[in-house]
């Protein structure tokens, strides 16, 4: 299991839910404690050399773990490790090959549940009217668009709504949110307007980074909305997020 740095530090409850859901499905979960970050912040900012060092560390940690898959509750970080490492290691044949081999085993959480384990129904229950925000990496690089929705449709009591322009980016974009704060915020506002129009009271995503952005803006200006990672919804006990 790869728990991205910001999930580790800011949203540990998401990691806990991932473990609980996977165990319930009979998956043997290990957590290599040497793991840190996938290196994406540096990579996205153009600091490829710095990203390479971090990616190398990632390869070392996960290659030495005996596991069939590396499951990650973030479409974005899973994309970094599965799709962008070959670019990070461009021109370095050995490491590029290593990253491709490991990358093939890296799976985003819902992708792993649906496409590897063949799970649809988890017996989760949660009352609410929800919209699902698919992170851009998950949508476009991974193409894991329907899997989280399929899982959510089977959650008892959860009304999964459509919302306007759901394919639009939330405006996070890593350092983009800090470098171009006005545009980034305007992008979040557009999502929030669509959320309001949909009548949803709950926002769910497979990426806590998008949620951090949208929730941060919702807390300043938006309507009261419950914000959860997909794993938390699938891990509900007696209808409650734990």
């Amino acid at each position: 299991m790869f728990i991205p740095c910001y999930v580790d530090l800011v949203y540990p409850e998401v990691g806990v839910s991932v473990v609980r859901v996977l165990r319930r499905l009979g998956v043997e979960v290990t957590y290599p404690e040497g793991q840190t970050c996938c290196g994406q912040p540096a990579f996205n900012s153009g600091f490829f050399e710095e990203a390479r060092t971090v990616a190398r560390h990632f390869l070392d940690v996960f290659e030495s773990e005996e596991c069939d898959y590396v499951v990650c509750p973030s479409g974005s970080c899973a994309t970094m490790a599965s799709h962008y490492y070959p670019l990070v290691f461009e021109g370095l044949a050995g490491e590029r090959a290593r990253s491709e081999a490991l990358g093939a085993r890296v799976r985003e959480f819902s992708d792993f549940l649906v496409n590897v384990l063949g799970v649809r129904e988890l017996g989760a229950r949660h009352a609410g009217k929800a919209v699902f925000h698919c992170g851009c990496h998950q949508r476009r690089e991974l193409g894991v668009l329907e899997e989280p929705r399929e899982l959510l449709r089977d959650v008892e009591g959860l009304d999964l709504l459509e919302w306007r322009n759901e394919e639009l980016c939330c405006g996070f974009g890593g350092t983009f949110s800090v470098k171009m704060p006005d545009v980034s915020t305007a992008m979040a506002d557009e999502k929030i307007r669509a959320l309001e129009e949909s009548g949803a009271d709950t926002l769910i995503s497979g990426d806590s980074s998008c949620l951090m952005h949208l929730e941060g803006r919702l807390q300043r200006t938006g309507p009261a909305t419950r914000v959860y990672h997909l794993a938390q919804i699938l891990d509900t006990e007696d209808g409650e997020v734990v």
Partner: protein
Amino acid sequence: METGKPARSRDTLDRRHEGIESKVEGFNDRARRALEDEFLHESVARFTKKSVASRQAALERLPEAPELRETAYRIKQETMANLDRYLEQLAGAVEERGGKVFFASDGEEVVNYVGELARRRGSKVVTKSKSMATEEIELNRRLEESYGELGLEIIETDLGEWIAQLAGDHPSHIVAPIVHMNRHQIADVLSGVAGEALPPNVEDLLQFARKRLREKFLAADIGITGVNFGVAETGTICTVTNEGNGRLVSSVPPVHVAVMGIEKVIPKLEDLSVFTRILGRSSTGQDLSVYTNLVTGPRQEGELDGPEEFHLILMDNGRSDLLGTEFEEALYCIRCGACLNVCPVYRQTGGHAYGSTYSGPIGAVITPLLKGNEEAKDLPHASSLCGACTEACPVGIPLHELLLKLRNRQVDEGLAGKGQSVAFKGFENTMKSPALYKISGKVGRMAQKPLVKDGKIGRKLPGPLAGWTGTRDLPALAKKPFRELWREGI
């Protein structure tokens, strides 16, 4: 929007001098101005949304679109690998038909060629159809400045371009130049030309423009067009328009000058069928644009129309520097504007925020490539890297990856700034060491204490987090990170 609001009250600056020839910085300031302009914001959102929907519908009517995309990419790739050969072939074919060909290494050479041509012909009136290549080199302004003594009257004849020209403005979209203006603003601009107040009524404004432009079409001594595709095999220039002005510019005046970026060459006539099928659909959602003009040289003996002289200017202006580099794919662009329409950043800001001739994702890529990183430092960062542009590009340019590589080039060239460089060095050192990572978490949890209330930082902080906390709350670091919970047992 209030009725009758003067067109230029929003921004009375003459923006003509802010084109690609000027330093492009301050994206944030421009973006902020755009965001505050409610009309612009709504109008751009409405237009882009409509374009995205029409494009989607048009592509659904074209089941072979994915294969066409691959074919288009391959044609472009092969063309760039042999660009010199295809350009020679094109030039030879044009000359064989009696046309003249001029290779211009930069904008100045284009300006001088056209200026000297106008001098030799004793021209007074020059009509132009829409051309991003001539926008890129600011041909109009530079002709007026460098050849002022000729007293040239240069008229843009694409309706949007003409209005932008009259307003002293720049196009803000590759395909829809005045998407940022409303009919009241347009009425105001055209009233200035009419010498009387025109009603802000689309039909009346169109009729006025039509009448006025017709006079210019007939009076023109030289017609300047851009080129969508130049066919090497036959020496045919293809221009695609929706208003028919392209035809009036290329066939009525005695002289036709076509200004073409060298990357617009395609090997064969049959390749046109690939590109015309994707251009209209990607651009405006039309199966085919209204006018697809094929011009092969000047009027031939026995022909009834066409110009006496035909000049093809093949303009490099920095393009050949990209050949064989990791940025070569930027040259595959067919200027359809699809990446602008799907871009969530463009959607918020419109085109002027980019401060360059080319806006949106493709503008953020080619502006620094053609002008140099230092001139357009902000642009590669004006993207959340969501990848919508790459997904939409009908020729398969990996736009968001090129933006990433441009960011990397800035770092390599030492343009990223000391603060960032130090920060990412720190990031690298922390993330390669689990022990240091753990300690940093601890330090962060201690340091945040005075700032956190109800599990979050709810006010604007100074320093590096100002950008975030100015408009958004920041969640606090959890009391215990996941790794501790794992150790304790889940």
